[in-house]
């Protein structure tokens, strides 16, 4: 059971030939009733060999991310509540991206309450182009900045988890964070433009086009929704 929620942890520990620690601790955790996952994540990330390993930061971050994702998953009751919102948002999205596309710049948006932004020093998300995690690529590499969202949806996967994950670019992450509070399209655009030192009208146009494309993508993904 624990294995299903820690695929990245398994992959990186296998790559580093430390998988026996996972097997040992997951077997112990499986005997515990209520706190199996908390016990497992804590004992694995504080295991002496892992603490002193040269890739300790990478391993511990992967464990932390997978544990957080596990904790985000919802109960069936909560998923029913999400489903009610999804129905409304799906209809709203359809209108926004079709008939009201030209009106977006006059509207306010807010970040979907079921979306969580995540920042990591490592590239830990599924690589859609290769159809696998590329975690080994992080080994021995200097820390960098990566951005993701976890999105709670109204469907369970076979592991009874209802969390989707998507990568974000640095700019996408910046813009999405602006909408943690209700904000107008134009206000967000002004804030976004302020981070660039553009000089020409053409440069300004490129920034505005990129901003609009990002907002369209966020509306499509329902990372941004209309206030209730």
């Amino acid at each position, binding site marked *: 059971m624990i294995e299903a929620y820690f695929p990245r942890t398994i992959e990186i520990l296998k790559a580093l030939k430390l998988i026996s620690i996972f097997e040992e601790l997951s077997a112990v955790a499986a005997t515990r009733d209520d706190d199996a996952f908390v016990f497992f994540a804590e004992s694995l990330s504080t295991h002496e060999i892992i603490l002193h390993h040269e890739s300790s930061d990478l391993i511990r971050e992967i464990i932390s991310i997978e544990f957080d994702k596990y904790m985000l998953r919802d109960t069936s009751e909560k998923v029913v509540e999400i489903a009610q919102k999804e129905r409304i948002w*799906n209809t709203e999205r359809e209108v926004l991206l*079709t008939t009201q596309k030209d009106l977006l710049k006059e509207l306010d948006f807010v970040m979907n309450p079921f979306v969580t932004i995540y920042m990591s020093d490592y590239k830990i998300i599924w690589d*859609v182009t290769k*159809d696998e995690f590329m975690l080994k690529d992080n080994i021995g590499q200097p820390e960098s900045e990566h951005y993701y969202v976890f999105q709670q949806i109204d*469907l369970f*996967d076979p592991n009874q988890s209802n969390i*989707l994950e*998507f990568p974000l670019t640095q700019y996408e992450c910046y813009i999405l964070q602006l909408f943690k509070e209700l904000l107008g399209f134009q206000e967000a655009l002004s804030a976004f433009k302020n981070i660039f030192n553009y000089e020409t009208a053409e440069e300004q146009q490129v920034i505005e086009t990129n901003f609009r494309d990002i907002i369209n*993508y966020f509306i*499509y993904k329902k990372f941004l929704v209309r206030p209730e």
Partner: protein
Amino acid sequence: MKIVHSLWTKPFKKALHEKQPNYGGWPSKSFLYMSWALSCLQFRKFYDNVELVTDAAGYELLIEKLKLPYTNVQVVLDAINHYPEKLWAAGKLYAYQLQDTPFVHADGDVFIWEKFTPTLENSSLLAQHFDATNGHYKHSLEEAEKFGFHIPEVIQEYVKDDSNFSGHSAGIIGGSDLEFFQKFCHASFKVMDENIDKYHVDFKATSYALLYEQFLFSALARQDQKQVTCLIDDNLLSELHINISDFNNKYRERFKYAHMAGFQKKRPQYGYELRNQLQVDYPEHLELIQRIIHD
């Protein structure tokens, strides 16, 4: 223009008994049903003539249970049940062979939100796009060679030039050159028949399908100097940053088309978005599918 869907259910029936069933690449039966429903309903929105070629079980599923509004149905694919289920594209080939008027065959995981252009519809041969830099074809051929499968001469000739490890994606395929399709289908079934005693080995079904469908189609078209019109040019795909397997294409200004090809369908976000699309545009069909799944 006539649109053709084909569903040969033998590959799915086998999947029901496997530990990790493969519902046409979707992670569950409900998504497979949703995919056929959305694909059919969207084609019907833009085309008056959408035909289905299937077998008895496919008729029961798509017509009797899902009540999809095909304009004509041919229940003929039980005739190919002697082929192993791993030859999942055999049903498509049989459907191409049946056509006696210009057609566009679309996979059950292809979705449109606008009509095809007249240029495409009037082409003698048409396909989705040309995979110019696709290593899958090389892998497909290497695997066929590894298992000692017979490889048609036209493909051997085609790949003498190393740059030809490429082919036309058959998410949609068709045209008005019915003579060519007869030749292509005959050659394809010949490949399947010539290797019939070798299918006990653990070959990759989708990789092999590339060989007897897309690769063969492209090699024959090149040999006969036939021009194939593509829905979208390979260069334009990269230029416009288009991901063909993206429901977001519905909201683009151009290229309102999606094909949920390959391994991507396994990822939960694709099934989720498929459900979202059905929920908004065809809620009555979504409810019907949910009832069928729960019964």
